[in-house]
């Protein structure tokens, strides 16, 4: 997976918390470009890499690549919230659910709208939801915020049973989205086209997140994370910045949920369980917090650990109960082992490895 070349700018933030990337003399022309332009350029490179990968591997893996894409967007938003501003949210799955149901309702009730408009509306809806939840929980800190968001994740799917006629109850909603546009007919398959739509949205979202994180807002968030009192004495509006971080994260989560509904064509309350929310946060820490690269490892881990575990269960001829539960057990064990031996996650471990290799080549 080569796509998130988009996040090269983020790496220094992981090593020295909150420092802006130093401008090395060798990259003067690159460094002279404004930050958003650099991120957009890297986003385009990432998209090109994904497209190449997609055509190299064919139609079968398209859905998996799409799954990595939207999962990564959700985790990247969470990364900004947890790694950036230090607020621990256990309810990110709730925002994915809001996005997914918005997509389904839009397709069902306004079938003529193009996908771009749908995605825009979903972002707006998620922002509204994020403002509501973020403002309500702005005064909560640490474990209290974690507890409140956990309750949100468990409670929200109940709404689908409450409004059974509108939201479809436990059967959920099934939608049919438009396939390949006519001018590309025959060039790409439907699932490849959907994957490309997903990844285009994802890289744009990631470029935005990277720009926010490297800019003033990101700096303020990191100041709040490190010491709330000191940050407020330095004139940073603590409450407002926290709510903004929450809103950005929920917009990313909602967009990711909308993309998921678009790719899978179905939304059910049972796909937005507590386990999903916990998995998102856990995967973020597993991948490595403080860097958007971590979000890539995290989403690859979520998608592929499940596939590997299912394959393993099939090859061992396990019972159906075992087969259904093996992925989550597998994920939990990998999570605990990674935290035990690489406390900074996969990305932190890779960075350590690189530093060690460089030190060796310098000394010899």
């Amino acid at each position, binding site marked *: 997976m080569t796509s998130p070349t988009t996040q090269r700018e983020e790496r220094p933030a992981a090593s020295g918390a909150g420092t802006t990337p130093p401008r090395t003399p060798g990259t003067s022309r690159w460094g002279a470009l404004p930050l958003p332009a650099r991120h957009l350029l890297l986003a385009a490179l990432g998209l090109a890499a994904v497209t190449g990968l997609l055509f190299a591997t064919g139609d079968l893996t398209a859905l998996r690549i799409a799954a990595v894409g939207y999962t990564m967007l959700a985790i990247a938003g969470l990364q900004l919230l947890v790694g950036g501003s230090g607020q621990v949210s256990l309810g990110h799955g709730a925002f994915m659910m809001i996005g997914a149901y918005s997509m389904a309702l839009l397709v069902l009730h306004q079938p003529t709208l193009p996908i771009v408009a749908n995605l825009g509306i979903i972002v707006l809806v998620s922002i509204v939801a994020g403002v509501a939840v973020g403002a309500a929980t702005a005064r909560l800190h640490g474990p209290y915020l974690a507890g409140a968001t956990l309750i949100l994740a468990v409670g929200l799917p109940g709404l689908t049973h409450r409004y059974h006629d509108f939201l479809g109850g436990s059967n959920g909603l099934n939608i049919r989205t438009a396939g390949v546009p006519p001018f590309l007919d025959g060039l790409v398959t439907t699932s490849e086209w959907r994957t490309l739509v997903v990844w285009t949205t994802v890289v744009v979202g990631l470029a935005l997140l990277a720009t926010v994180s490297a800019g003033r807002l990101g700096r303020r968030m990191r100041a709040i994370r490190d010491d709330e009192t000191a940050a407020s004495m330095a004139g940073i509006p603590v409450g407002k910045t926290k709510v903004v971080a929450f809103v950005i994260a929920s917009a990313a989560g909602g967009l990711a949920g909308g993309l998921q509904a678009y790719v899978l064509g179905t939304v059910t309350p049972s796909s937005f369980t507590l386990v999903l929310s916990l998995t998102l946060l856990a995967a973020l820490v597993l991948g490595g917090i403080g860097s958007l690269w971590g979000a890539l490892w995290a989403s690859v881990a979520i998608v592929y650990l499940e596939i590997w575990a299912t394959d393993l269960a099939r090859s061992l001829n396990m019972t159906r109960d075992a087969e*259904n539960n093996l992925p989550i057990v597998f994920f939990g064990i990998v999570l*605990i082992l990674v935290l035990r031996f690489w406390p900074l996650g996969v990305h932190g471990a890779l960075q350590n490895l690189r530093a060690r290799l460089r030190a060796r080549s310098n000394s010899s």
Partner: protein
Amino acid sequence: MNYFITLTLNGLASGAAYAALALALVIIYQATRLVNFAQPALALLSVYAAYTVTQLTGSYWIGFAAALGTGLLVGAFVERVVVRPIARTSQLNAIIVTLGLLLVVQGGVGMIWGNEQHSFGYAFSYVGRFAPSDVFALVSVGIAALLLFALYRFTPLGLRMRAAAFHPEAARLSGVKVGMMLTAGWGIASLIGALAGMLAGPPFISPNVFDVVFVFGITAAVVGGLDNPFGAVIGGLLIGLGMSYVSGYVGPELATLTALAIVVIVLSVRPDGILSRPTARKV
């Protein structure tokens, strides 16, 4: 009016289970500043142990003892082997490792006992208003809370545990084995969590049975103040009452969202729970 009284009595009985779970959370939070999100998983394991033992022996009470024993041992084991080495590194990692435990145990229980529901008996008859099983729930949680109070207040072990929680360095200098005390705290907390599971599990148990119970337990702990065992018990009973009224008059699907509203409102007014005392902090 009759309906209201029924709801009140039911609420108190289910509130007892939430209070026990909240108590388990508070004990660990006091000792290690960590919300143990694996608590429902430990309770789940205990309840399934009780299920198996009851099936084998035919006696509810041997199963009950097995649940409490499993809780104690698994809690102590998990603290020693899994949580302690990771909790040292950072606070976020400590939370995540309890989430990892939750996933592993929930999935593991599903692998061993299956995802479908098993019927699981009550200790006493549950027929009628304020049935013997409801009385048992309230009395057993009351006794557990009193025993816990006595343990902390009157025994040398309790004194050492409090010392280890509040001033680990000073306690260590006076010869308290701080690590041992943390393990003991986790064991005791999981034992109380197992009691909560035995009260909240029936009539059916499945790997997800404690998700909602845990939500109400954590609501109770947060509302009462994560630092305050009495707050946890009172919070548990209040949440039990509140949820019973909401389920009875509005609809059970909205109970969890009501819990969220209660948490947000209470914490907006008192950011550290109802029974918190103001704290000063040096910057």
